[in-house]
């Protein structure tokens, strides 16, 4: 190379190289994602301090935890007083049970566990991307992208088992990712057992983990059928033994409550709407993830993440069930973050290889004229990768609009609150099953909650409340789990006569309704025998307080 050539190159060199622009934009993308992380931490802190139900049904998860802390199963006969049962597997509540022994009955530890579970998931996503691609920045962006998802944000810090399931699922696939390549038999066995234990833990946290089990075993089968079958038999035996044990211990209620009663009406429009919402929010990451799956399909070996992604996206179709919702996409979002991160790492570090096959032969003929543009294309790709994360950051926009510094950002972007308590959330309700949550609670919500508790405390005898928190805080027995009664009633598995007899005898001094998720005949009985005396708004819902009617209304079916 002559001096002349060098001087010409120096003269034509761009002011900023593509790599420098990539780094600047990547730092900006990480800053945006870190901003979402602060919103998430603020939301978690806000909910952990809130002593009442925030999302419908949280209280019943607390009741399950209390029952486990006493050594009781929550899978009970709902035809008998107090008409309570649970439809969720036990693990999350078992993990939370020691907190009941130490701190008593409270929401904060369940919410904290859910929140910590999402942090562990994000960390596992980052590790998976770092291990596969070696790019620390993109690994960090992938982990934070998971936490920035509106869906993860909504349900992460709730007293709900869903995100703990996702944590176990993610840990399972990250552990099992390279299991077939481990040469040492003993080490391979340990890794395999650890990974399968995580799947089992996910399944006994929430039934939805079945899709991850299917995806993982499909991967293991394709890679090494013999090993997959042998471990599959062991896995089925252990999982089945636990199932049979719980079923025997609960005299069949485990099967009835968690499996049979969970067969709910399927609403196709709800599924389609939620898929649209998922793509609208996460499309910037879904497209690279899908491209990596296609690449692995035709030019490399299929990874466990590809199987997991396909299984999780397909399983999200169950979000159309009555009672299901956008949370059913959380597993698919975790898989998307891993695959898109690996895709981005490969682009940045030029880690693509195309072995000869009919597609590469056809492709090379078509792409030959573009060969001189290869360096320019790589430069463009270097800049495109952080733009993907920035685009994602814009798509998932959610922040409080009245708290600095978020209010400055909201003002700069011209964003107006579109949710409760001055909160903006790009994930709006476009379909049924969408949880209207994410806003931060206020002192007024807290005061309203205590007002309801005071009403319950002042009432002698039993109180029928649609949310468990009020009864727990007032020191009253929690009676019924409304959504579970509705699940059972919809499947013809609930005999409401004993509960209706109590309502008709005006046994309850007060009834507190929120979403009115009781079976229809129970609601009709309430209407005949109780009248609305007060409505207390809390957290965006109107809690209806009802007291016995002086003269009950006539039951039309009597005539």
């Amino acid at each position, binding site marked *: 190379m002559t001096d002349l050539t060098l001087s010409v190159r120096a003269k034509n060199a761009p002011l900023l190289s593509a790599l420098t622009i990539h780094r600047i934009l990547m730092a900006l993308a990480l800053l945006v994602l870190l901003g979402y992380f602060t919103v998430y931490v603020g939301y978690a802190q806000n909910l952990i301090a809130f002593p009442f139900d925030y999302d419908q049904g949280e209280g019943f998860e607390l009741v399950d935890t209390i029952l486990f802390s006493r050594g009781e199963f929550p899978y009970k006969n709902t035809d008998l007083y107090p008409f309570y049962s649970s439809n969720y597997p036990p693990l999350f509540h078992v993990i939370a049970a020691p907190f009941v022994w130490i701190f008593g009955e409270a929401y904060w530890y369940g919410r904290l566990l859910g929140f910590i579970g999402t942090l562990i998931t994000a960390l596992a996503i980052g590790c998976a991307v770092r291990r596969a691609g070696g790019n620390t920045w993109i690994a960090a962006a992938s982990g934070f992208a998971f936490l920035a998802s509106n869906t993860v944000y909504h349900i992460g810090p709730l007293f709900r088992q869903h995100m703990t399931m996702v944590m176990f699922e993610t840990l399972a696939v990250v552990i099992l990712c390279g299991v077939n390549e481990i040469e040492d038999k003993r080490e391979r066995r340990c890794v395999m057992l650890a990974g399968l234990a995580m799947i089992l833990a996910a399944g006994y946290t929430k039934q939805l983990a079945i899709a991850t089990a299917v995806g993982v075993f499909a991967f293991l089968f394709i890679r090494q059928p013999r090993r997959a*079958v042998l471990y599959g038999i062991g896995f089925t035996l252990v999982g089945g033994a636990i199932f049979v044990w719980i079923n025997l211990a609960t005299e069949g209620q485990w099967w009835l409550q968690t499996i049979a009663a969970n067969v709910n009406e399927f609403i196709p429009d709800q599924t389609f709407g939620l898929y649209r919402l998922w793509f609208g929010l996460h499309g910037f990451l879904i497209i690279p993830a899908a491209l990596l799956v296609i690449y692995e399909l035709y030019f490399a070996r299929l990874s466990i993440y590809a199987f997991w992604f396909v299984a999780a996206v397909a399983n999200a179709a169950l979000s159309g069930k009555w009672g299901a919702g956008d949370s059913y996409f959380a597993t698919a979002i975790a898989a998307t973050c891993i695959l898109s991160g690996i895709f981005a790492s490969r682009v940045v570090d030029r880690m693509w290889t195309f072995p000869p096959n009919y597609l590469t032969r056809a492709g090379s003929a078509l792409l030959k004229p573009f060969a001189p543009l290869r360096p320019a294309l790589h430069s463009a790709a270097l800049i495109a990768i952080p733009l993907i994360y920035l685009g994602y950051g814009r798509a998932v926009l959610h922040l409080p609009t009245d708290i600095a510094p978020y209010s400055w950002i909201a003002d700069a972007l011209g964003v107006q609150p579109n949710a409760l308590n001055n909160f903006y959330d790009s994930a709006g309700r476009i379909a049924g099953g969408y949880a209207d949550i994410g806003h931060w609670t206020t002192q007024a919500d807290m005061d309203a909650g205590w007002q309801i508790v005071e009403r319950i405390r002042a009432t002698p005898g039993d109180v029928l409340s649609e949310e468990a928190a009020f009864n727990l805080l007032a020191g009253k027995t929690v009676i019924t789990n409304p959504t579970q009664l509705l699940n059972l009633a919809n499947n013809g598995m609930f005999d409401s006569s004993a509960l209706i007899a109590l309502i008709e005898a005006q046994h309850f001094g007060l009834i507190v309704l929120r979403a009115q998720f009781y079976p229809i005949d129970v609601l009709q009985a309430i209407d005949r025998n109780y009248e609305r005396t007060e409505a207390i708004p809390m957290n965006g819902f109107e809690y209806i307080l009802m007291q016995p009617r002086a003269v009950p209304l006539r039951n039309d079916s009597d005539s």
Partner: protein
Amino acid sequence: MQESKKGRMFSPDFTFSKRLLGLLMLISGIGAFFSILAIDLIDVGREGGIGPAQQIALAAALLTSVIGLTLIPLGDHPA
């Protein structure tokens, strides 16, 4: 490791090839497609024909078959 030429699926060194995975996807896709159609033929009490969820499932089954078909020419490359 590649698909064993002896075809011993349960031997310790067996792994699926792209061709075998393609065949599996082709057959299962076709099977699923006709099974979904059969729901209407067998369940004579149903009304309204093929619903939106069924249409999506049919499309997914068809897509699985097509992907399977395109994998078959990739031969012995490990899946």
